């Protein structure tokens, strides 16, 4: 089926709806990925991590079903590259950043939508960090290129020269059995007191559907961070136009794919102009913020409290900056790698995940030092 609609309008409309749904769901369940990994290390809490596993597994099955049905524009999806040491190092810094900021890239957005001034501070840091990366992009890109582990291979299936279905089944079958066991033991349920709370397992199912719709209708799973680069580029081009003109990071156009529903080639990159990346990500970001704000308003919880200890503002700004920087170095963020790359068993996403786990542990330890508290004692 070929649509005659302008693909940018189509993609923008789809992304806005998906963003609204994602923001609403994430606010109701407080589906915070930074918190999941941090609390695993700090407090040995596993319920959210188990919901995250459910999200990855469902996405894996949905993406593979869509591939089998011929619904995907490109497989693997655009902007995934062969694994390099940059994925691991970027993931490590990203993990430290997201735990310090109190939310990952989308966590920051939905918390900001619900009125968190700290997350707004982290958002400013994200934009600043994304712009900062442009200062050393050529050197980092050369490092990434020199540490490629498997040239021209993106997924495990490509490395093993097998159909993607085989490694997917190898992970999905034991994964499903494990999830069923957790479900039977009631380990996917959180006792909750918050009004209108959505259990994280239900949120995971909803988010996997949202991601699958994005992959089928837009051609890519959820992603937001290129827009932060665009915003940084815009600010820099206004404030320091001569310096901006010399930065290669803003000139690259890495996105180039044929959108299967319209048959039109779409391109985009970090430059501050309207392109396919902007058509995809700006409505998605707007939707996540608005969806969360609507959810909070409906519950009477849309309030703005800014009287927070100064060190928490510093942490949010520093964490956001580190996350923005790392999302360019990795390249890409946790949403792209964990909810997109991991479900298709992308090797670069696995490296990012490993690095991010280490970063979340380091970030947790740093928080304990900075905030001066630790796990409680039993009376």
């Amino acid at each position, binding site marked *: 089926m070929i649509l005659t609609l302008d693909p940018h309008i189509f993609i923008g409309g789809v992304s806005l709806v998906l963003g609204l749904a994602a923001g609403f769901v994430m606010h109701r369940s407080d589906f915070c990925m930074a*918190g999941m990994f941090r609390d695993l290390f700090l*407090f040995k809490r596993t319920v959210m991590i188990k919901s995250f596993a459910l999200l990855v597994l469902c996405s894996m099955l949905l993406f593979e079903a869509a591939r089998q049905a011929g619904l995907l524009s490109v497989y693997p999806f655009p902007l995934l590259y062969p694994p390099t040491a940059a994925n691991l190092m970027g993931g490590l810094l990203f993990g430290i950043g997201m735990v310090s900021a109190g939310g990952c890239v989308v966590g920051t957005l939905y*918390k900001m939508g619900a009125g968190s*001034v700290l997350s707004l501070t982290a958002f400013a840091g994200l934009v600043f960090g994304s712009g900062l990366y442009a200062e050393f992009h050529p050197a980092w890109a050369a490092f990434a290129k020199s540490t490629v582990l498997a040239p021209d291979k993106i997924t495990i299936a490509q490395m093993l020269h097998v159909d993607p279905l085989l490694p997917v089944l190898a992970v999905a079958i034991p994964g499903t059995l494990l999830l069923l066991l957790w479900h039977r033991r009631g380990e996917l349920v959180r*006792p909750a007191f918050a009004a209108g709370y959505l259990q994280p397992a239900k949120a995971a199912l909803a988010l996997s559907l949202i991601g699958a719709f994005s992959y089928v209708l837009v051609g890519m799973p959820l992603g937001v961070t290129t827009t932060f680069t665009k915003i940084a580029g815009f600010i820099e081009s206004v404030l320091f136009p001569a310096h901006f003109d010399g930065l290669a990071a803003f000139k690259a156009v890495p996105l180039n794919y044929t959108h299967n529903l319209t048959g039109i080639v779409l391109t985009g990159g970090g430059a501050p102009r309207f392109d396919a990346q902007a058509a995809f990500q700006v409505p998605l970001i707007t939707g996540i913020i608005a969806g969360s704000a609507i959810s909070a308003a409906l519950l009477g919880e849309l309030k703005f409290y800014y009287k927070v200890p100064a060190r*928490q503002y510093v942490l949010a700004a520093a964490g956001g900056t580190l996350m923005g920087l790392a999302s360019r170095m990795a390249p890409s963020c946790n949403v792209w790698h964990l909810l997109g790359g991991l479900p298709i068993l992308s090797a670069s996403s696995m490296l990012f995940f490993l690095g991010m786990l280490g970063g979340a542990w380091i970030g*947790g330890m740093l928080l*304990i030092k900075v905030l001066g508290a630790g796990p*409680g004692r039993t*009376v």
Partner: protein
Amino acid sequence: METIEFDIRGQICPSSLLVALKEVNSRTERLRQGSVQLCFLTDNRDATITIPESASNMGYGVSVEKKDGYYSIVISGKKD
């Protein structure tokens, strides 16, 4: 019984939880004796799960009540 109130609205996790744990840990004896209870005001939905869960695991009694746009979490002596 004395009630000590902490307004941690605006703080996000894990700060809200860590602040609560710090205050609880510094008053273990008085909480155990029942001479004090701690009330945390928070707008962080996650904290309405993590603070009660942690306090309960530590052996304290916990109650959560929704107020106008935020939540009140009260931690008192040993749970029944």
